[in-house]
């Protein structure tokens, strides 16, 4: 049995230590906001926060999460989720929507570490997240807006 902390709650899961965090949270905890896109750390759809860092959960074994805090889209702290989700809604970013939670989780790391990101900063933060529908231009606009909303909230 493995003890996990996810979105502030404690869980006990009966899985082998090599099971990727992604499948523990999707298949065992039924938290399906985090998505499977490639299983090879190529697309970022699986991005969750582990002790605040944006890891690729599709290849990170659950053993890595023991004693640490996992945060998924469902539990993203309001100081980050509020400006991001408001901006994402204002710009109407999603198309099929499948990649969007991963995009937001990656953007959250950027906003936490940089309160006024430039376009280059956005490239540096977000080039790991694939959007097949091509919403990149709106993602960029939404990140700028989210940063603005976050700055005016504090």
């Amino acid at each position: 049995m493995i003890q996990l902390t996810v979105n502030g709650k404690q869980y006990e899961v009966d899985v082998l230590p090599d099971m990727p965090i992604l499948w523990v949270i999707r298949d065992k905890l039924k938290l399906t906001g985090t998505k499977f896109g490639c299983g090879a750390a190529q697309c970022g759809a699986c991005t969750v926060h582990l002790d605040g860092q944006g890891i690729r959960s599709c290849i990170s074994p659950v053993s890595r999460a023991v004693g640490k805090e996992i945060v998924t889209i469902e539990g993203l702290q309001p100081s980050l989720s509020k400006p991001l989700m408001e901006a994402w809604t204002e710009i109407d970013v999603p198309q099929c929507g499948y990649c969007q939670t991963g995009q937001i989780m990656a953007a959250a790391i950027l906003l936490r570490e940089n309160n006024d990101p430039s376009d280059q900063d956005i490239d540096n933060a977000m080039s790991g997240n694939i959007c097949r529908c091509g919403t990149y231009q709106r993602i960029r606009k939404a990140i700028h807006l989210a940063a603005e909303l976050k700055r005016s909230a504090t």
Partner: protein
Amino acid sequence: MKPSGSISRRQFIRSTALTTGGLIIAFHVPAGIRKAAALTETSLFMPNAFLRIGADDSVKVLLSHCEMGQGIWTSLSMLIAEELDADWHKLQVEHAPADTAYYHTIYATQRTGGSSSLYSEFDRYRKAGATARHLLVQAAANRWKVNSNECRTENGYVISGDKNVRYGELVQEASALPAPADVPLKDPASWKIIGKEKIKKLDSPEKINGKAVFGMDVHIPGMLTAMVSRVPVSGARVIRYNEAAAMAVPGVRQVVKIPTGIAVLADDFWAAKKGREALKVQWDLGEASHLNSDSLLTELKARADKGGTAATNAGNPDETFSKSKYKLEAEYYQPFLAQAPMEPLNCTVQLSADKCEIWTGTQTQTDDQRAAAQITGLPINKVFITTCFLGGSFGRRNITRSDFVREAVEIAKATGKVVKTVWTREDDIQGGMYRPAFLHRFKVGLDASGMPVSWKQISVGQSVMTGGPFEKVAVINGVDMFSIEGMQTAPFVKKIKDQKIELNTPTWPVLIDNWRAVGLSHTIFAMESLIDEMAYAVKKDPVAYRRMLYKDVPRLLGVLNLAAEKSNWGSPLPKGRGRGIAAYEAVASYVALVAEVSVLKDGSVKVHKVTCAVDCGLAIHPDGVVAQMEGSIGYGLSTALYSEITFKNGQVQQKNFYNYPILRIHEMPEVNTFIVPSNEKPGGIGEASVGQMMPALTNAIFAATGKRIRNLPIKKVNTGTA
């Protein structure tokens, strides 16, 4: 001379409509819904299959088409909401169940495709909303003992003088009234929703907060997860596999042989994946083991040398060619492509003695029902499909043979379990149903003004429509019109007196099917590259030249000129930068794209800007149109730069995004979209601009570097410098 054996996408649509009896207005409500409603809700107004209004004022729209990112969740709902005068904020949307009530108004089956949802539902959905409003008004008028025309509606209320009543309060009375034969629709001048900029997508909130349910997210109690070892070619068979090794993996429950391969069923995704790896399935690829991309290309060229079936054959193009002032010969090659939607395929099936329940993201509900009925022996109306959000499709979920649904039903049948069959990304990239590889070869003679007077063309590639339900209307006299889509019907080609357009169709074991824009995904690249070469051959500016070619097509001229204007065509650019244009009609809309690019020293391409002019007739959801243009530009750019599926000894060489690379945010150009104001009938959007992006890019590379690219993907440009 009028070319024979050719039909445009418009004619294809019209001819299918004729065979299916024209427009269908379904004013009945499927039995399943009526029954469920009776059990769960006391008051529900169900004037037709598309709408349910509750006593709590909730307005539920049922979509006959599926949402895959193209935005119909919102734009179809706008049609109903406009006529209904409901409170927009009380709107809920659902995918309709699989039922004849939801048959496509043209294709006589329940399906989504061809960028046709909005224009095929433009009348039906508005009528659905208008009918409901009419009945609600009648109910209120009856209650107040006034005439209907003394009532008006606004934001979910019926109002007469100082009296008003919520829609929700009227549901019982309205339910008892007979439906009118017909109802008038609103004057567009009074539209508050249709065509308005401020409308936000209704599905965005749940896609942003992670609550949206895609097929991949479905969980049924007791469900097992299955993965299948399969190959993307026909005629293969399994030689051997190690069942015991798979069963030894913790969490694996069963191994079963099915028509497409070997399935491993396990407690969860991870166990299924490890179990399948342990199987070590060995395949005999049969004829397909000789598939090698080099020899496939050689064969395409040899077939082009040989000639094919004539789609058009008029006059004497060879003679006219020899006498032409300008002579141009060019050959364009484009590879097999995977659609690669972000959500890999999946399908959950619960099969019992008397029904088959399916949960998946699919565009082909009726085809899927028929496939499941055939496999299980159940009647079609006992096959229930819950359509989930599609995490992208681009053609992969529009498969008339229902490949992934069939497979999932086979597994449920073989095991008796509730099973979610899932595909990994490798399964997706290697899974077939590719856009076929195509070669287009041209021999064109131009007169002194540059107009083409002789046109000889041989196109070579597999037929997408043969063997499918649309074969009879799409394959005419041996020519799959989708293989040469938009070529013989190009306005200036139709006028050429001396022309021969031939198609040679190989039958290879590679499994092929729909890819976004279908034939236009490769024909527009060939045509707009050739047109660009024609312009340069006669030393005319590419925009000026196209003005000449398209002078009789005002809507195409319109977008051409708008894109040229908004991109500052002709204004000076820094050294090494170039602009390229492509303008074409696609899915009943007109799109012109101007790309502005540089090529860096190492040959990599930098796209700075794309200017898009789109005439889609009436733009029902303008911001949705802009979003689709931006997205298509990203999709087309990614494809032209990077995408190819190659074969070596029958194996697909690409596996995942590390060797089937996708455009990323730092490569996305600035996109500026301009919608031509129009009251023409709505045209399609989803596939309207993918094809144009590719030649706009290569034409711009030519302008920047003098290098003409005739083969895709580009990857890097050989500038001959580094």
